[in-house]
C-alpha cells in the first residue's frame, strides 16, 4: 500500500514535470528565437592578442546570466541515462537554452547602452545544488555570458 502511494506520487510528478517542463521549454525557445532575430544585427566577435584593437570611442563590460531549473522528468530521464550511459539528450536543450538566454541578456543590455559590437565574449556554466536538504545532484544550472560592448 505504501509502495503504491509512492509509485503514484512518482508518476504524478513525472507527468507534471513532463508537461510543465515542455510547456516552459517551448515558450522559452519561442522567446529566444524572437529576440535572437531582433538582435542579430549586432555582431559578437572574439579576437586574439595579435589583432589590433578596433577604433571606437567607448568600451564597457556587460554580463548576462540566468539560472534554469531542470524538471522532474528530465531528472529521472538523466538518472536512467546514468545507468545506461550515452548522450543525455534531455539536458542538451537545458544548457542550450541557458547559454542562449544568457547571451541574449548580455546583448540586450549592451544594445540599450548603445553598443554596436560586443567583443571577447566568454561563457561559463555552473551547477547550483539541488533542492534543499538532500544533495541529489544538479538541481539547476547557471550560465553567465560576459563581454565588452563598444560604441
Amino acid at each position, binding site marked *: 500500500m505504501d509502495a503504491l502511494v509512492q509509485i503514484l506520487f512518482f508518476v504524478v510528478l513525472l507527468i507534471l514535470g513532463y508537461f510543465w517542463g515542455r510547456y516552459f521549454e517551448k515558450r522559452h525557445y519561442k522567446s529566444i528565437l524572437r529576440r535572437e532575430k531582433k538582435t542579430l544585427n549586432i555582431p559578437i566577435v572574439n579576437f586574439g592578442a595579435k589583432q589590433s584593437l578596433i577604433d571606437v570611442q567607448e568600451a564597457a563590460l556587460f554580463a548576462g546570466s540566468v539560472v534554469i531549473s531542470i524538471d522532474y522528468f528530465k531528472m529521472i530521464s538523466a538518472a536512467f541515462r546514468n545507468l545506461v550511459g550515452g548522450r543525455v539528450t534531455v539536458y542538451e536543450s537545458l544548457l542550450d537554452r541557458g547559454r542562449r538566454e544568457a547571451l541574449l541578456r548580455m546583448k540586450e543590455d549592451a544594445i540599450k547602452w548603445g553598443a554596436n559590437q560586443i567583443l571577447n565574449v566568454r561563457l561559463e556554466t555552473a551547477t*547550483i545544488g539541488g*533542492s534543499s536538504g538532500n544533495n541529489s545532484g544538479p538541481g539547476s544550472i547557471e550560465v553567465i555570458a560576459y563581454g565588452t560592448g563598444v560604441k
Partner: protein
Amino acid sequence: MNNKKEKNVILTTLEGVPGQTIMEHYGLVQGSTIRAKHIGKDIMASFKNIVGGELKGYTELLQESRKEALERMVEQATELGANAVVNIRFSTSSVAQGVAELFAYGTAVKVES
C-alpha cells in the same frame, strides 16, 4: 554592471582599452564573494525543480553577488591607482552544498588617451 559609477574605472574583457594606450600595469586584481542561498528562495526552487523553468530568485541573487565581486575587484584596482581593468574573467564555484563563490579577476592598468 555599468562602469560609470565606479569612479570611471573602465572594465573590459579586451586586452586593452579601445582608443587609449596602456601606460602602466599594476598586475592582477581580484574580487570575490561567497554567498549562500536562503530558505525562502529554496522552497520556490524545489517546486521549480519539478516543473522546470527559470529560477528568477537565484538569477537575481547571483547577479547581485557577481556585482559585489566586481565592485571588490574595482576597489582593489582603485587602491592601486588604476583607471581600467582589462582582460576580466568571471568564475563560479560551489564551495559547499548551497554555497557558491563568485569570483572576478583582471589586470589593473593605467590608460591615457
